């Protein structure tokens, strides 16, 4: 899966916008949107929000979690806990990127938020690497990782699968007499 595909999925997330035009309900395959009243917040998918934003037809209201204090809390929690903590949105990384790239003028303290989300992301990826490392080094057959987001799974999937395949090949080519202990060195 491509990161862009994950991003595509994230664009289905709903976000609040404040339109500056008036439009009746619009009926789309994915569901009805609107009605759009100028000055009144309305929930629309991210793709539409970004489109309207680019045409200067709306202001985007950042999601509730996109707030420096809340993100700081999450970051602290993420750093403290060994396991993955629950993230505010399953697409937090994608949404942050999309919204900050296109509507940073509507989001207060955009730079801080960018840094914080990046911090959270880094912490989580580091954890993911660690857990992959211990997974392999302990020769576990399965592991349970909760609260991973699609993007995170996606970043490690190809590498993990390839390397596991590779190890499997190496392992299956082993002489039957040798014991396992040797191969942890690979």
């Amino acid at each position, binding site marked *: 899966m491509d990161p862009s595909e994950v991003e595509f999925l994230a664009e289905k997330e709903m976000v609040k916008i404040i339109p*500056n035009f*008036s439009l009746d309900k619009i009926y789309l395959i994915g569901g009805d949107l609107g009605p759009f*009243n100028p000055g*009144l917040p309305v929930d629309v998918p991210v793709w539409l929000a970004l489109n309207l934003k680019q045409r200067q037809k709306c202001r985007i209201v950042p999601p509730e979690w996109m707030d420096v204090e809340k993100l700081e809390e999450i970051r602290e929690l993420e750093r403290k806990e060994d396991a993955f903590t629950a993230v505010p949105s399953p697409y937090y990384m994608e949404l942050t990127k999309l919204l900050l790239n296109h509507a940073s003028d509507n989001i207060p303290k955009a730079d801080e938020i960018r840094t914080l989300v990046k911090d959270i992301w880094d912490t989580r990826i580091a954890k993911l690497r660690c857990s992959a490392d211990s997974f392999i080094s302990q020769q576990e057959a399965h592991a349970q990782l909760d609260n991973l987001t699609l993007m995170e799974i996606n970043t490690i999937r190809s590498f993990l699968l390839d390397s596991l395949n590779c190890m499997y090949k190496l392992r299956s080519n082993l002489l039957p007499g040798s014991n396992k202990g040797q191969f942890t060195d690979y």
Partner: protein
Amino acid sequence: MPCERKPMRYGHSEGHTEVCFDDTGEFIVTCGSDGDVRIWKGLDDDDPKFITVGEKAYSLALKNGKLVTASSNNTVQIHTFPDGDPDGILTRFTASATHVTFNSSSSRVAAGSSDFMVKVVEVSDSSQQKTLRGHEAPVLSVTFDPKDDFLASASCDGSVVVWNIEEQTQVISWPLLQKTNDVSNAKSLCRLSWQPGLAKYLAVPVDTKVHLYKRGSWEQVSTLSDDLLTQPINVVAWSPCGQFLAAGSVGGLLTMWDVNSKLCVERQKHEKGFTVCCLAWHPSGSQIAYTDTEGCLGLLDGLSTSTSVPNTVKQAPATKPAKDYDDLFDNDDDDRLMDEGLSDTNSPVKKPAAGDDDDDDFMPVTGRVRNRGAILDDENSLDTGSLKLGQEKFGDDDDDAGSAVVPAAAPLPFRPIYEGPLPTPPQKAFQPGSTPAHLMHRFMMWNSVGIVRSYNDEQDNAIDVEFHDTAVHHAMHLTNSLGHTMADISQEAVLLACPSTDELASKLQCLHFSSWDTNKEWMVDLPRGEDAKALCLGQGWMAVATSTLMLRLFSIGGLQREIVSLPGPVVCLAGHGQQLLIVYHRATGFDGEQSLGVQLLQFGRRKKQIINGEPLPLSQKSYLSWLGFTAEGTPCYVDSDGVVRMLKRSLGKNLGNRWTPVCNTRETCKSKSDHYWVVGVHENPQQLRCIPCKGSRYPPTLPRPAVAILPFKLPLCQTATEKGQMEEQFWRSVLFYNHYSFLSSSGYEIDEDGQRQSQKEQQELLMKMFALSCKLEREFRCVELAELMTQNVVTLAIRYASRSRRLALAQRLSEIALEKANELQEEGPEEQEDEYSIVRYSQGEATGGRFINRQDQEEEEEQGQELGEEEDGDEMEETDTRKCMNPFAKAAGSPVKPSPTPIGKVGRANPFKVPDLGKPPASSGQPRVTNILDNMMSSRKSTPLGGSAGRPNKSPVLKPLAPRPKSKTQSTLLQMTGTKAVSKKTQESTEPAAEQQKPPDIRPPASTADNTENKRPKTGFQLWLEENRKSIVADHPDLEETDIIKEAMGRFRTLSAEERLTWTERAKGHTGDAAELKKRKRVEGGDVENENGQAEADENNAKKKKSLDPSSKLSAFAFNRT
């Protein structure tokens, strides 16, 4: 000694912070580690002016319009005060300066530095410097001898040194302090202070005590201490009179001694116990400003350095509401006057206590006199009354010198004590949807059209206009050179107004952007001495209320249209379409209540005053916070308790309009200090648009607040229960769809779909409530509900009631239904005029006034008839469908031969009118009889036609809703049609030719019919009729039963003789066959014969049945359809 510790406020970022007053005491000036010098107009000033002097500011001194600061770039700089322009560098050190101070004549500045040096510099000529060398560690503090001969300094080397300035030599040095290597490590800042005026003493803080050294002899004359002082004293400061010494300690304790008595006269604790690092006396001696190492600024107010005069600066606690208002209605002179007035009334209570205090600290007279002078300088602190009081007491003290107990000051003759309810300061005029005018960045208006913001800071004085819908107009940016404070915005224009100044009159500026000509702007000056207080925009007009109780109306193009006098000072205005809503002060309110009045004017075609100065209901002790119209044009307002009220217009001529609470925004707030700031109200959909404000009443302009939508909720009882919920929904729906009737009555187009929808919704709710009450066995309540229903829904209710076997209820309901039907006919035209009669039904009002416009009704009678017919048609359809739904009930309940008789209008008549036959119909007596009434008459006439009206056996059958225990699911309605049909049947049976067979599709009575049939031989005509009846009916669908038979007779006669003969023979053949059988079977036995004959007859019957069955069913169907 009473003194008030004001709450600390944020001054600077964390770190060493210093404070001082300017010469007049008007400003508090602070500097802090953020490198800024802030100039506060008072402790409550939320928007201090600031001057950036460096990366960090270590110390400041202010005198004579010169601000000297020691900043982190090792310099001592001068800035002008209060402008804050840099005025050069006074001197430089090789390390940062730690303390700067002015001498008493402000001609010199002394500065101590971390490079061990103290410099004394002439302010006028910075080249004239004197350097005092001798300290062996960073200098902690410096202070001038008021007589300018000496200078004292403290240093980290532990010494306190007195220098001779001219000779630049040490006069004396005391090793008093602990040695440290840096200012930051010093236990105490050891801020020395020289007594002003006499310059007799030098105060040196030494650990937890203050040593006083005498000038000249340099002997330690006394020590001031306090038991509560456990931590080192950081800073000492003399009061301007030189009698008191204040000290601030590391532990946050503020102590004040009277130097003469060496007694501690005041102790205050820092609210968080932070280290106090600077103290400054107000020039009047009534206040001390202090700062702590966390950058906070505090103030001790109401210090009476004279102590003979009770502090009057202190705000009276009893004026709490007044204080609240002060905060809300930015404190200006008027309010202050009011405050003082209030506090005066309280002062008698306090004064005796204050007097007691005085007696405890025996004051030398001289000190007092001086201090009184000082207090007289303080314009804020005294009024003449308390001054007199002071003098009186003064006299007292003189007389009873030394006596411990002085009788409390006698009641003061010059000020009567009033203990009744206190008047509320009247709420100031405001623009609904604006934030207070004193804010630098504020909303001047936020409404459903757009937002007007104003910025008023150093860089910019501007107004931003932004439209929610960019299709209306693009955003505008205006420079606010006139200083506009009020604004309104509509789809047509932006209106701005400014108060008058000394030179300029109050101005009105209108940006008429929707104008089609090229002049998009006009401006008008109000007459001198007249200030715009409130303004609003309507459709094509605008209104301004002024300080001279005037309401000026302009057209949107700038034409002056009207001028009206207001009954009281305006609070605010709101406009919508052609309506203008004015709220003004009716009278003085008491005990926190406002006394507001409201007027609602309507312009345009029908100019009238709808509300004429009624009181505006507010929640207890609250004030108006928003006023406006809903998007649909219903007046609406919000008070400071968050209760939203809406006008419930009543349609009757002389009925008042009522304000109904529709929402309490505070109920949805999470915390007590949260508020909702209302920006708009919509009735359809029901939305209360507001901005949630966390911890405040008003939203800030940045970050841009987001609008939230609150639902409405009428504060009915027990809305947790299902009943309460439905009641709330119903009345809310009634209230919120009330605007339709208003709009239609004032000639606007209305969304009829929406109206119908709303009506349907209400009726559904009523039906639900009805069902609920039924379930709860509250039949009386059911009837009450039915009275609110429309007629159609009552029929449903009747059905529901009869199904749930509440026959008494059903009967009552049917009476109601009848009444409604009658009303409907009478009201037909009126109904159309204002569809919302339900509201009136429900209120039980206007029933008396129904007939007022009879004339109109007669004019519109035609229309009404049509309407009535339509209604009835609907009714029929409904009953039809019910019949289809319920075939079994029908079969069981109506043993009726489906009469092919074209019933015509009888069939279409309202079924509910039938039961009324017993009584004389109310409407029939009236000369004006509509078509429906005619129908009713005809239905009545149809019975006498049969000639059986007088038959006694009929009347019980016709009784409405005769209980029929057999049929379980039948509806009364059907029963009624059933009984009606039965009556027809009976009437048929009285016909001479009615011996004919009953329709065979009804089994139970068929057997009896057969029996009677068997007894009588059939004629040939009868047989023929049976066969041909259908065709006759088909040919003449509109014939009565009797007519059918007549017709049939005629046809039968036209038949040829042979055919007639065959028919009679067939008829005979029946009997003949039977006779033959008898003959044949005589052998077998007479008993059997009879049976056989019967059996055969049955067989024949069966055959006939077969032939008739489908057709009769069809005809029944046809009957239903007609």
